[in-house]
Each structure stands twice: as structure tokens, then as C-alpha cells.
């Protein structure tokens, strides 16, 4: 109890950080820039990325490097918040590292599947994670076989999760399935950590947030499977994260039993989340489902962040909100680099 009271200053710090977030006007300004250099210049002059870009010549910055810097900034923000009141000593707060490790393992397996010896994975490996990961990322980048990969993960819980995976007839591993396995384990670990680290009230609030996250990710995944593979409920279930509660399972099954994507949308519109999404200006349609679901999650998180008195919820929320900001920026940067129309970029920004 005392520990929880002591960590309340983190809520204030998180709210101070939130005050510096990018606003709609910033996104509009960025979208109207005509080059990556101009985007970098705007970020350097007018936003909280000033310090990040202070040592960088924005006239010559590479798109990929800028994106890397933005992602690294996210990691630094996480570190800063953890170190502020030594939250990293509480197991739950290490979820961010866990999540990123899962992403890197999946990326490494995709690299193995590509099999032609290019350096794709080392190019995208986030160097800032090297010192934080629980296994040797450089060794992971050098692996050329699945067995070697498992050896790198020998002293981690990931090994046990992956050791029974088998390649298909082409020697490729099912990355989608592996991702679901790893993420499911991550979700289970999170649930467990929440129950062990926090009191009843705070844990309940966190569980609600995680449940929302799982439900909405499942809604997107099932829809993708429905649209791409026109798959039935059994197949769709393979692409879902573990349900939080029986009610979630039944509702998701109801969605997955839809005959086609249109019916899926119709059923989703009448669900708890769907009714909220229908209040958005653009409503909920087949074409905007993913963006709308992400927007819903963003707004639910924002609302929770503003009203919560729980350190963990505040921490979890602020990092998610900024991860959305980072993704918005990356979308804009890539859009400008590849000269995507502004109207398209506007539809991609989650706010």
C-alpha cells in the first residue's frame, strides 16, 4: 500500500509528458511538409522531439534513421518513467521489454523464412534494445537455422514455447501462428503479473485495459482472416489471442460465425465496442474497420489515463498513447517519402 502511494508521483510525471504530445495541428503541419527533411526540421523546432534531434542535421537525415530515432525515443521514455521511481523493480513494469522481445523473435523468424542470406533483419534490429533484451540480440541476428535460434533463446521462457514448432513442406515456419503463441504467452504473463503486483482495485482496472486490448486485437485479426481467407469460425479462432473471459469468447465467436465481411461489420456495429465506434464521425465500415478499432482503443486509453489514480494504469496508458503517436509519425514520414496524398495520410492518423 505504502509502495503504491509512493509511486503516485509517476502519475504526475506521465501527465506532464502527455502535455507535450503532438496535437492535431502538429499532425496537419507535418502532413503538409514535402520532404522527410522538412518533417525532421518541424519536429526539431516545434515538438518534444527537439532534444532527440538536437545533434542531428535534419537536412541530410535518412528516413529510416529518423524512424529509428523516434522508436528509440519511445524506449528512452519508457526507461525514464521506470527509473523515475524505480518501477522496474516491480515485475509488471517490464512488460515493455517482453513485448519488444516477442516482436524481435518474430522478425528473426521471418528473416529465417526469407532464407536468401540478405541482411534484412540486422537492418531493422533496434540497436537500442541490445542492452535491454534478456537474450543476445546480435546472436539472434546471426542465426541461420531455427535450431540456432532456439539455442540463442535457451535460457529464456521463449524456448519452451517454440521448441515444438515444425516447418511446413517448404521449410518455412508459420510466423502468424508463432506470433499468436508468443503474444498469448505474453498476455498470460501480464495477467499473472497484474494479480501478483497490485491490489484488487488497481488490478481490476488493469485487467479491464488488457481485456479491451485483447478484444480489439481479436476483432481486427478475425476480420482480416474473414476478408483474406473467408475462413469459418474454427480457422479464425487460430488467429485470436486468449480471451479474457467467457463473455468475450462468446461475443467473438458470434462475430466469427458471420457469413461474410459485411455481416461481420453489421454484428460488430451492434456490439459494445461497435456502438461506441458508430458514434465516431466516420462510423464503422469495412474499409475503415482497422483504423476505427485503433481509434477506439486510443480514445478509451486516453479517457482512462485522464481519470485514473493508479500508477500502473497511468504508466500503461501513457506508453500506449505515445506508441500510437510514434506510429502516426512513422506513417506520415513514409507517406511523405513515397508521396502519398494528404487525404490518405489524414485517414491513417489515429487521434
Amino acid at each position: 500500500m505504502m509502495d503504491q502511494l509512493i509511486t503516485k508521483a509517476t502519475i504526475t510525471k506521465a501527465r506532464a509528458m502527455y502535455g507535450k504530445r503532438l496535437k492535431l495541428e502538429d499532425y496537419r503541419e507535418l502532413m503538409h511538409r514535402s520532404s522527410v527533411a522538412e518533417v525532421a526540421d518541424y519536429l526539431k523546432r516545434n515538438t518534444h522531439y527537439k532534444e532527440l534531434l538536437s545533434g542531428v542535421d535534419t537536412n541530410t537525415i535518412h528516413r529510416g534513421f529518423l524512424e529509428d530515432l523516434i522508436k528509440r525515443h519511445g524506449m528512452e521514455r519508457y526507461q525514464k518513467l521506470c527509473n523515475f521511481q524505480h518501477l522496474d523493480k516491480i515485475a509488471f513494469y517490464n512488460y515493455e521489454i517482453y513485448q519488444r522481445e516477442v516482436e524481435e523473435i518474430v522478425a528473426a523468424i521471418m528473416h529465417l523464412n526469407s532464407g536468401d542470406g540478405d541482411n534484412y533483419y540486422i537492418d531493422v534490429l533496434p540497436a537500442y534494445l541490445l542492452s535491454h533484451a534478456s537474450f543476445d540480440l546480435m546472436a539472434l541476428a546471426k542465426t541461420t537455422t531455427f535450431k540456432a535460434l532456439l539455442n540463442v533463446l535457451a535460457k529464456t521462457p521463449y524456448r519452451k514455447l517454440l521448441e515444438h514448432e515444425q516447418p511446413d513442406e517448404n521449410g518455412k515456419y508459420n510466423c502468424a501462428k508463432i506470433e499468436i503463441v508468443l503474444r498469448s504467452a505474453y498476455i498470460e504473463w501480464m495477467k499473472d503479473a497484474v494479480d501478483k503486483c497490485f491490489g484488487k482495485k488497481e488490478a481490476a482496472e488493469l485487467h479491464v485495459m488488457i481485456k479491451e486490448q485483447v478484444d480489439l486485437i481479436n476483432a481486427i485479426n478475425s476480420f482480416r482472416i474473414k476478408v483474406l481467407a473467408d475462413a469459418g469460425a474454427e480457422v479464425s479462432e487460430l488467429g485470436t489471442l486468449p480471451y479474457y473471459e467467457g463473455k468475450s469468447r462468446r461475443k467473438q465467436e458470434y462475430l466469427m460465425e458471420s457469413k461474410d465481411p459485411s455481416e461481420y461489420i453489421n454484428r460488430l456495429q451492434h456490439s459494445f465496442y461497435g456502438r461506441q465506434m458508430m458514434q465516431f464521425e466516420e462510423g464503422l465500415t469495412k474499409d475503415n474497420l482497422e483504423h476505427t478499432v485503433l481509434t477506439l482503443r486510443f480514445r478509451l486509453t486516453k479517457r482512462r489515463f485522464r481519470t485514473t489514480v493508479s500508477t500502473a494504469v497511468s504508466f500503461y496508458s501513457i506508453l500506449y498513447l505515445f506508441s500510437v503517436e510514434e506510429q502516426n509519425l512513422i506513417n506520415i514520414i513514409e507517406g511523405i517519402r513515397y508521396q502519398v496524398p494528404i487525404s490518405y495520410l489524414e485517414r491513417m492518423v489515429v487521434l
Partner: protein
Amino acid sequence: MSIEKMELVNVAGLLEDLDQTLLRCCDSGCFHMESALQDVGDGRGFTALHEENPYVPTLKRLYSLAGSLNFKLESADYSSLKENDLQLDEYVSNLEGEFRDLREKIRVGKQEISQREQALIQVKHLDGLNVDFQKIFALTHIGVRFGKLPADSFNKLEYYQNRPFVFVPYERGKEFFWGAYFVPNEEKQIVDSIFDSLYFERVRVPDFVRGTAEDAVKDLTDELAALNAELSESTAEMEKLLKERRSDLNKVFSKLKFLHDTFELRKEAVVMNGKFYLVGFIPLKSAKTFMGLFDDLPGVSVILSPPELDQRITPPTKLKNNIFSNPFAMFVEMYGLPAYNGFNPTMFVAITYTLLFGAMFGDLGQGLVIAAVGFVLYRLKKNAIGQIMLRIGVSSACFGLLYGSVFGYEHALTPLYQMIGFESKPLEVFAQTNTVLIGAIALGAILILISILINIFIGFKQKDYERAIFGNNGIAGFVFYLAILVGMVCQMVLGIPIFNAPYILIFCVIPALIMFFRVPLGRYFSNRHSEEEHEGIGTFIAENFFELFEYILSYVTNTVSFLRVGGFVLSHAGMMLVVMTLSEMVAEGMSPVVVIIGNIFVMCMEGMIVAIQSLRLEFYELFSRFYEGDGHAFRPVGVNYESDSLE
């Protein structure tokens, strides 16, 4: 203390006389121009003039020249300039030519300096590399790339340890490692692509760099010194030339700006059949002088008429104030100028603001200091704030005499009072708290009543009987409010049970009913018939019931709002008490310091707060009763030398 009387001016003449007419209008300094198209309307054969201003290109070039020389163009007397438009353009071209060579020399010099400085930065980073650059550039089998590698990417180099290159870092920056990689020529392409993927930024060392890094630094430093000396010479030459040409530049600028701005006014005229037509306003007192300006233009006729003659154009407002109230016009303009036929509230603001500020900030010493600061500010900057401070400072000093306070010393004036026959000061703030608060309310009530009387006066002046008689700020409202006040004073203070049935009926109920039916009553007495749809009785009752409720509530809230005056009297005294207490707590030598600092702090902080609160009371409690700032300012046409905006 009123609004300047205006005359509507119609000017018509031959088109060839338009420029001369506009020149004289500008020169007069008293002609407020309106759009003639607004007056004559469209579609009657009149057309507006849409011409390109011929002075824009020359003026732009002049602004550009001045900008490049960091020279601020100012207005000057150009009467000695005899050049015509073409000659002015030639003159500007000659000026540009004179400065062009020097500017080019300076530009090239700056560029060379910049190049050398950049090279110096790069070479300084290579300081650890004790090799002759020329030898490195001469290598035939090994390629070298100098540059910087992001720190994150440096950590990834381990992945490529089996590749044929060597990266040698020699300096670490915040985000980057400065270094060089060496690669066999045949592997250059692959290794270059690896470093590209690691975001390596290549730095090209200029070929004029010779020797080792240390030698190169020395050579570059010497070259930079020489170039900087040359640049200083050129800059001094430029400044000398500018000094010689300054006066001419300003004269040419002034004439061009005058011609430009005057030409812009042509857009306000309309033309038909080779004749132009202008309309505007001038102050009545300037009419004769203005007419005289056109005596030598037989083709131009000027007709003066009463300002209300043309309903399509609203006369502008120019406030006429006396010496005391003139600075307070700033507050009135902040709220909004009165309409031409409206009421000039500046004197009212001057008196009430001075009174309210003085009451809330009563201290003889502090008041005199504020007055002194205001006086100095006025002398230095010639602005209204200084003048206002002078007046409110004196008012504070007067109230300070009443409260007996001098820089927080509450008993410093006791001998003075005793000399004039008082035992002690007239008002002991903390001992007579109720008096202070009740006094504040009484002051507020009086000011509100005065505001209502002003509204009644304006209403009768404008023949708006609904406003003057039946409204909540008319006679009905006045009677109602006064009756409540008198009743409360009699009942609670004097013990006279005045609130009996006849009193309530005559002075409260009847005025309330009049306010309730103000709209139909107003229409009846002014013989106006509304073109609006007649609303139903239910709607009428509901609307007016709530409006009446709002009026009564506003009487209460506006009156109680003046409690803040008493509140600030007490808070001011309280703050000075704190200062005095603190001064007694410190060592004796420090006590005057604490008193001085405390007084400065209170004067600044409390002074600002009281100033804002007084303004708030003016605008919200008083102006809302009678004032509508819906006029527009009188702006005589002329040349704006400060603005560099060109059409």
C-alpha cells in the same frame, strides 16, 4: 467629453484630378474615407477602380535593398525631392547598383568563410588521424570514407565483423561516432551499401585541404583570419556608403510610400463617364480648411452635408475628451467605441476608475510612488499608461490619507490628524471592517444607479422609450432598484418598517410588471409595429418571466460584486501588515530592506490585480447597464510609414 461632430463629404470631379484630390485628402490629415461603392450601390453605372499600383515594384526593390543592408527605412521630409516617378525608379536602380558590387563581395566572402569553417569542423574531427590527407587521397587499392556513424549503428558493426572493411572511430559525439572506414576498392560497392543501411553520413573533405589534420587546421585557421579581415573591410565600406546615402534613401522612401499609399486610396473611389466620386467624413471644425484645399482645382467639387443624411454609411466616432479623461480613452477603445450618436463614457470611466483604484489601493506613500512612476513613464514613452498611473496614483494617495497608511505604516499620519482636530485616522480599516464592506456595497449601488440614469438619458436622446422608461435599465428598473435599496437601508439600518403593502406594490410590483411588458409597451409608445411573427402568449410569458428573473438577479449580483472593493481594501492592509511583521522579525539593519522590498512587491502585485479588478467592474457591472460599443473609429487617410505590406 463628447463625440466629435462630423460632416459628410462628397467629392466629385474629373478623373484626371483624382490623384491630386487624393494627395490633398491625405495631406489634410482629417479626411476619413469610406468606400464610395457602398454609398452609390452597384449596378447604377458606377464602377470601382481596380488598378495595379505602379509604385509597388520600385518600393519592393527599395524594401529589399534596405533589408539586405539591415537598414530600417524611416519617414523623412521629401519636399526637396523634385524627381518624378520615373526618376525615382532610376534613382533606386542607381542605389542598387552602387551597393550591388559590395554586397556581392560580402556574399562571396561569407560563402568562402563558411566553406572554410565547415572544412575546419571536419578536419578537427580527423585530428586523431596523423596522416597526410594527400597521401590518403592518393591510395590506389584502398578506398577511404570519412564521416559519422550513428551510435546505435556502431553497435551493429559486430554483425559485419567478417566483412572486408575497418571502421576507425576517432571521436564520439552525442549521437554519432566520427570516423573513417577503409575498404578494398573491389569491395567498395558492397561495403558502401552496408554503411548506407547503417545510416553512415559521408563527409567529403575538400581538396584544398593539405598535409596532416594538424597542418590543415593551421592552414584553414590562417585562411579564415585573412578572409574575415577582408570581410570586415568590405562591411566597413558598405556601412560608410550607407551612412552617406541614408538621408536620400529615407527621402526617396517617404515620397514613394506617400505616392503608393495615396494611389491605394483610388480603390475607394467610383467612376462614371470620366468623372470620379469619393465619399467620407471630416470633423466639423475642419470643414472650412478642408474646402479651401481644393480652391485651385476647378474641376473638383466638394459638398458637405449632415452626417446622418446618408443612411447607408455610418459616421465614424472620434472621442473628444478633456485633459483629465483623455488617457482613459484607451479603456473605452478596448471595449469598443460608441456609435456616432451614442454616449462618450470616457469621463465616467476616468472618474469611476480613479475612484475604485484609489479606494482599493489606498496608501499615501505607494500612491505617490505610482504617480511618480507614471509621470516618468509618460515623459519617456508618451503613452496613456503613464498618464493613467499618474491619476490613479494621486487617487490612491488621497485614499491613503483617509486610511492613514504610508508605505504600510498605519500610524505615521496620526500627528497630522491630531493637528487638524482628529483624535486618530478617519478610517481604521481592520477595526471598521463592516464599515469598509458596507461602504463598498454603497459605492457600488450608487455607481449602478448612475449607470442606469445614463442609460435613461441615452434612451431619451435616441427616442428609444423601451430602453429609457420600460427596460431594466430604464426608469422602471431605476425605481425598482432604488426602492429595494431604500427599503433595505430603512428596514435594516434605520429600523423603519418601510416594506408595507403599498410600498411594495407601487415601487416593486408595478415596476416589475412594467419591465415584464416592456416590449409591447415600448412598441405602443413609439408607434412601431414589429415585422416579426407574433409569438404565442405562453412563449411570451415564459421568456419574459425568465428575463425578469435574470434582471432581478443581475441587480443583486452586480451590487454584491462591489464587495470586492472592500475586500481589496482589507487585503491591501493585510499584505502590508505581513510586510511590517516580517520587518520586525529580521535583524534591525535588515528591517528597512524588508520594508522596501515588501512595498515594491505589494505595489506591483496588488497594483496589477486592483487595476484589472477595477476594469472588470467598469466593463461588467457598469458598462453592461448603458453602453454599446458598436461604433467604428475615425481614421483619417494618410501614409503609414511603419507598415511594409504592399498590395
